[in-house]
């Protein structure tokens, strides 16, 4: 057997500081062979990114350092190398692609020059030779019109094209090892599918070894040859993809895979409650052409959207970034004013009410936001956060606190935790608190704007379960915004698919998943990673 490209053995990385953990990773062993894609999968805090950083020699200085163990690249020990030696190796023999293509590229340098920089440092090619090599690699990653694009700036490219540039820069010297740290997490699902295909293709071209870091089991099933599952800095399980995904041995792996929502929507009874939300012909337009600016850019963020949600029903709005799904949510909650159209909450049109007239209705529409770390004021206790709304509407402090205590029990948190501050809670707990805060207003419509997108998959499952519980308990109408088809499949009675501000398809979840009518809906389903792999409760049952 030939020598592995990367061999990590008994590697431990110590964290310096006052945290509750002394080690980011502890005694891990893994190998990446030539022509092999190894996926490291785990939840946040599992140490998967630290693993990638320690291989690259990019651990944050003064905060973490390799304590013991060895990292060998094609048999060459990396842990004892000096910074200068590592610099010579990085780019030439190993390279990295980052998560955020927006920030990983220098915004004021032409993309061609950013790829050429690698050549400038590591080769003796002259400017002409460098340009030829850059054009070659840009063609190889299927960038359209490379002769033209080589002189473009990053902001002129789409997210997917930027990630292609990053991959081109990483692979221009044909390194033996490519490390990809969540390279598709910031991308839309259709773009993600293309980038995954590209990484596979590029890897086969020069038999590159790939260490692929991800939190998404769907992505794992698309791209991995072998899978390494990490938890709390240790490796739980590793093996060939089909073995790990089909017959996971460890309880943790089984739990993670059971938490991934299934793509098959369950049959749900038709909801026939009274109509709570009715939006008709909703428009939100940004920019206006006027006499002074006859050529101003006009964007129809929401274009003639009509939808209804009944009591006890969950309507999902599914779409990629920029589709206008969040704008719909914010118009319904009147965080922004719609340009035209009607938003009826229990029959009252709130779209153009004055603030004073709208006030009594405002409490009836509550929203849970995506980012649990920014949804709560860090300077105020969670108790103060929950009682703020009811007290605005005239409840006494005493009654409000009583209601807050009851709600903490409803969301499965201890009522005694009310006097704690948000930073003392985990992301999932904070999202429960946000749900309690919304429920304290006794809403009829609850809007979830990607409420589980920032959470780990195991926590995500718990929060989704909680949302379903409170919907039943309080007979709520729920408007659920998500980009994740798996989540939509599991929680929504009906779904509306949005593209560029327009609802292209609307129907019951079962119908839409079984028989998508619109080409865009079909494209979305085709791009969903791991659609052939059965996850969720079905996998372990």
């Amino acid at each position: 057997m030939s020598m592995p490209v990367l061999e990590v053995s008994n590697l431990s990385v110590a964290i310096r500081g006052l945290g509750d953990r002394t080690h980011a990773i502890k005694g891990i062993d893994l190998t990446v062979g030539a022509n092999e894609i190894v996926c490291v999968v785990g939840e946040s805090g599992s140490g998967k990114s630290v693993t990638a950083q320690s291989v690259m020699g990019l651990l944050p200085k003064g905060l973490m350092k390799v304590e013991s163990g060895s990292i060998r690249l094609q048999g060459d020990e990396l842990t004892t190398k000096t910074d200068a030696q590592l610099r010579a190796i990085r780019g030439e023999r190993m390279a990295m692609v980052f998560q955020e293509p927006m920030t990983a590229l220098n915004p004021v340098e032409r993309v061609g020059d950013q790829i050429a920089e690698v050549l400038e440092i590591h080769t003796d090619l002259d400017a002409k030779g460098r340009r030829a090599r850059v054009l070659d690699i840009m063609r190889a990653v299927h960038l359209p019109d490379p002769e033209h694009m080589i002189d473009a700036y990053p902001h002129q490219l789409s997210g997917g094209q930027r990630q292609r540039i990053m991959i081109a820069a990483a692979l221009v010297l044909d390194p033996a090892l490519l490390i990809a740290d969540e390279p598709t997490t910031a991308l839309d699902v259709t773009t993600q599918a293309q980038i995954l295909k590209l990484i596979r293709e590029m890897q086969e071209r020069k038999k590159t070894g790939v260490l692929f870091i991800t939190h998404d089991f769907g992505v794992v099933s698309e791209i991995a040859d072998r899978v390494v599952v990490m938890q709390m800095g240790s490796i739980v399980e590793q093996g060939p993809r089909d073995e790990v995904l089909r017959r996971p041995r460890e309880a943790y792996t089984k739990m993670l895979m059971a938490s991934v929502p299934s793509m098959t929507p369950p049959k749900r009874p038709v909801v026939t409650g009274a109509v709570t939300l009715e939006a008709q012909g909703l428009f939100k337009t940004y920019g206006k052409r006027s006499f002074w600016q006859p050529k101003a850019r006009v964007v129809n963020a929401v274009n003639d959207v009509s939808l209804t949600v009944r009591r006890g029903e969950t309507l999902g709005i599914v779409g990629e970034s920029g589709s206008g799904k969040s704008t719909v949510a914010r118009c319904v909650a009147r965080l922004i004013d719609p340009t035209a159209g009607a938003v009826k909450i229990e029959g009252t049109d709130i779209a153009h009410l004055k603030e004073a007239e709208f006030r009594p209705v405002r409490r009836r529409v509550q929203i849970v936001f995506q980012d649990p770390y920014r949804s709560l004021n860090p300077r105020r206790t969670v108790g103060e956060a929950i009682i703020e709304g009811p007290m605005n509407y005239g409840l006494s402090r005493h009654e409000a606190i009583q209601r807050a205590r009851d709600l903490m029990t409803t969301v499965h948190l201890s009522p005694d935790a009310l006097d704690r501050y948000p930073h003392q809670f985990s992301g999932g707990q904070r999202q429960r608190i946000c749900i309690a805060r919304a429920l304290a207003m006794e809403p009829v419509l609850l809007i979830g704007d990607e409420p589980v997108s920032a959470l780990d998959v195991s926590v995500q499952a718990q929060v989704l379960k909680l949302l379903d519980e409170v919907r039943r308990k309080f007979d709520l109408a729920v408007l659920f915004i998500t980009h994740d088809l798996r989540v939509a499949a599991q929680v929504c009675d009906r779904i509306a698919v949005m593209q560029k501000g327009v609802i292209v398809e609307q129907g019951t979840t079962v119908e839409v998943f079984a028989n998508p009518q619109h080409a865009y809906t079909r494209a979305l389903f085709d791009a969903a990673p791991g659609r052939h792999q059965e996850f969720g409760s079905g996998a372990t049952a």
Partner: protein
Amino acid sequence: MAAGATSAPQGVSRPPSAVAMALRHPGVIVGGIVVLVVVLMGLLAPLLGTIDPSSINPAARNRVPGAEFTMRTDTGERIRMTALFGTDSLGRDIYSRTIYGARVSLLVGVAVASLSVLIGLAIGLVAGFFRWLDAVVMRIMDGLMAIPAILLAIAMVSLFRAGVLTVILAIVVPEIPRVVRLVRSIVLSVREEPYVEAAVTLGTPTGKLLWRHVLPNTIAPLIVQGTFICASAILVEAILSFLGIGVPPEVPTWGNIMAEGRQVFSLYPHNIIYPGIFLAVTILAVNVLGDGLRDTLDPKMAKRV
């Protein structure tokens, strides 16, 4: 099943106190101690072996530091004393004048810093939160910013009478726009935070919303900005006094003492050197204190990883 919250660490009740962290920063410690000493010096001036800073002693003009001279008190007694910093061309004791001079400097520094921060905070909150007011308010601020403090002071002194209040107003007006810009930029980013939007959906009235959720974010940067304004105000006051358009000459201020020593500087440099040292050390200390506070209080500027 109330398993959730129990995993949070016990015994922690608040985010790590910024005040405690600030008190460990060397800049804050050194700057703070020096400022404290200057403040005490100003407050306790009568107890520090000083005489009336405006008493004129024509018999003891232009004495060098350390010279002894005799002076007559109000009751007619004659006492002998040493002029630590020498005397000026009217025979006034420079040591006493310098110590008393700290009072005016600190008064101007603190008053300008507090007034400009308070007024700037109010305007900045409004300009940042109500978008329709923003353009109007900020253009007015741009206009104010174009007025140099010294020219404004000259204009105001010619309109009203020279005095501490005029000086303070003249320095406050051009400082306000700088505070407004700072506060506005913070408000513009904080108003997009989901917790502010959540408060909107909870029906929190705008005033309460600004007070509870927006204003606390401005405090740390404002304390930092306030110390820098304080240092610059002390300096501008000294410049105005030196130019003779500030506090009336009978009131001892560091700028006044230096202004009067100017004519005889080549013969008796102590007239300018001693108040100059106090001025320089005070401003340095306030700036070092401000730098230290910025490092610990302002997360954007912090050196933490």
